[in-house]
């Protein structure tokens, strides 16, 4: 009888220990360091947080992260949904889905390097080596500094790379959920006289909604931490800086541990609401079961 009570702990123990060592302890330590100065020798209270929120350049950083969250999530989830629904009806579904999913196989750094070349700019009189500018010039326009013009052109160009990478992921999850919806429901709706759009809106979407919610929160949590794409393509210059990249710079290049830790904590706080939502939904699902 006694072994029954200890056994779960024995099974979960090693995992819990690793979690404590690699997640819990660093988190607590980071929060502690954020209250100290650049090399953690003097206690400075909330000074780092005040700098993080009041420095003029920080307004841009938060703005950029907000743009990423809204645009990236909107496009990946909606494109993923549209593709899942449309591809469900065609015979070449598997091939199309493979093509759209392939970018997930590339590392973010690799994709960023590829797209850096796609966005390359040369002065109007020189031959364009960037794919996008080559198209623009071939159609009679002037080459555009896709990664230079701020604040919308370059941020959206960076987000486009992210969307290209991650739409496949959303599409695959939503497609799996879509296939779980009994076909009879949709057929019944059609027999009752609904057109395709109404079937989608009134039958498919509500039934898909739990999965859409999961995918959306996953994408939001992921994009709040976006780093690789920004670091490789612009290094945060030209008004494209994001929190994770700034944290990296402060920590490693400028050696300001206090400010870097404060930025990390800010990022954590931004993610917490999403995590709470996820946990609540998970609990509700467990109750239903």
């Amino acid at each position, binding site marked *: 009888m006694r072994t029954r009570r200890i056994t779960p702990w024995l099974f979960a123990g090693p995992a819990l220990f690793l979690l404590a060592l690699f997640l819990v302890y660093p988190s607590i330590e980071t929060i502690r360091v954020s209250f100290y100065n650049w090399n953690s020798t003097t206690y400075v209270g909330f000074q780092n947080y005040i700098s993080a929120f009041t420095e003029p350049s920080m307004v841009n950083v938060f703005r950029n992260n907000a743009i990423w969250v809204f645009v990236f999530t909107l496009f990946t989830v909606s494109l993923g949904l549209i593709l899942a629904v449309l591809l469900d009806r065609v015979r070449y579904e598997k091939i199309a889905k493979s093509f759209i999913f392939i970018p997930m196989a590339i590392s973010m750094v690799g994709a960023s390097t590829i797209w850096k070349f796609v966005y390359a700019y040369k*002065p109007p009189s020189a031959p364009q080596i960037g794919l996008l500018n080559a198209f623009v010039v071939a159609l009679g326009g002037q080459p555009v500094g896709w990664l230079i013009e701020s604040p919308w052109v370059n941020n959206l160009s960076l987000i486009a790379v992210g969307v290209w990478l991650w739409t496949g992921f959303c599409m695959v999850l939503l497609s799996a959920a879509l296939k779980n919806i009994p076909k009879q429901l949709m057929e019944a709706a059609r027999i009752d006289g609904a057109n395709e759009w109404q079937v989608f809106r009134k039958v498919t979407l509500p039934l898909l909604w739990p999965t859409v919610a999961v995918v959306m929160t996953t994408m939001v949590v992921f994009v709040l931490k976006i780093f690789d794409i920004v670091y490789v393509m612009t290094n945060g210059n030209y008004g494209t800086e994001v929190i994770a990249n700034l944290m990296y710079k402060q920590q490693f290049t*400028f050696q300001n541990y206090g400010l870097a830790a404060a930025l990390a904590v800010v990022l954590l706080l931004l993610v917490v609401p999403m995590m709470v939502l996820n946990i609540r939904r998970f609990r509700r699902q467990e109750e239903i079961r």
Partner: protein
Amino acid sequence: MKRGKWYLALAAVLLVSLGAMAQQVTIAVVWSGNELDVFKKVIDAFEQESGITVNIDEVGRDLPTVLPVRVAAGNPPDVAALPNPGQMKTFALQDALVPLDDLSNLADSAPAFVDLGKVTVNDEEHVYGIFLGADMKSLVWYDPQNFEAKGYEVPTSWPGLMALSQQMVANGDTPWTIGLESGAASGWPGTDWIEDIMLRTAGPDVYDQWVDHEISWTSPAVKTAFQYFGQIALNPEMVYGGPTGELTTNFGDAPNALFTKPPEAYMLKQATFIQSFIRDQNPGVEPLTDYNVFLFPPIQPQWGNPVLGAGDLVGVFNDTPEAKALANYLASAEAQAIWCGELGKIAVNTKVDPSIYPDPITAKAADIVQSADVFRFDASDLMPAAVGSGTFWSGILDYINGIPLDTVLENIEQSAVAAYAQQ
């Protein structure tokens, strides 16, 4: 019997590897491409002469980021090419660097450069860095044949330079080519412009105050320097590709505009090291005939023609005889003859025979540097990393991208206040 032989073999391998380990040294470097190839030649010569094996850790442009991490982790390379004197000072103050005063080849090094490698730690001044080679920055590169074809003359003053640029624009030519892109280091060529202009508009004493943050970035002296730079760099007619072109052209590709037919630009302000890039990407060009240099002209006559330069700094982190031997070799005339001779850099060791310079241009530059009255080291290399390798670089990019100058300078000033407090 077989078993016994097995153990002997293992012991032999262990002894050999222990022996090999004893005579080994690692050096972390920031160079890549052509510069790395030449560095490997220097190392080969050292290995042959000393019998010590050298492991080159090719860290690349991220060295300023990687090195502090390794030092903090207690795992630094034995020797490293230090990104700049500012970071050398930071490491010295952390007691991470080994004093090098006892290196024999220091006695032959140009005094100005020996001084630049000194840091005062705990009231004691020691040499913590030695220079492998130096670059001179106050140069403007041009193609003499293009100049002659259009009747352009080399200017000797700032008004003359601006008049020449105006003349070129009137002829439908683009005077300047500027390349600011450089990966994580983008913006640094612009800082060279600002520094040369500062020396010529505010003088060397104000320059020193600027480096030590005794004057603010928003002060008139700094603002004026940026405005002079803006007269050229912000004007789409003055620069090939306009501001967007400057931001997207890599510093190593910028000279190519001088050699196209017809030329896309006529002048490039850049340091002596650009020569290896020019020769690499434009095969067949010859110094003096196809390309030449003139000194970046004086602006305020009373400050004359100060020389701005920089250098390749090397520091030792682990006090082993092999590491010190390597550092001493890098300070020797032999090593510098290879490094400077092939890359067109300027030797710091005064015993280097001037004939090793690959061309008359570098020889001329070496002469100017070694005999200059007023010589100053690149400011962004002397400042703390958050400014010199951070906000100063991104400030240049923001300025060229259209952000108002006052905003740019205030941003840099804010980061400077925090960064200098760390020293």
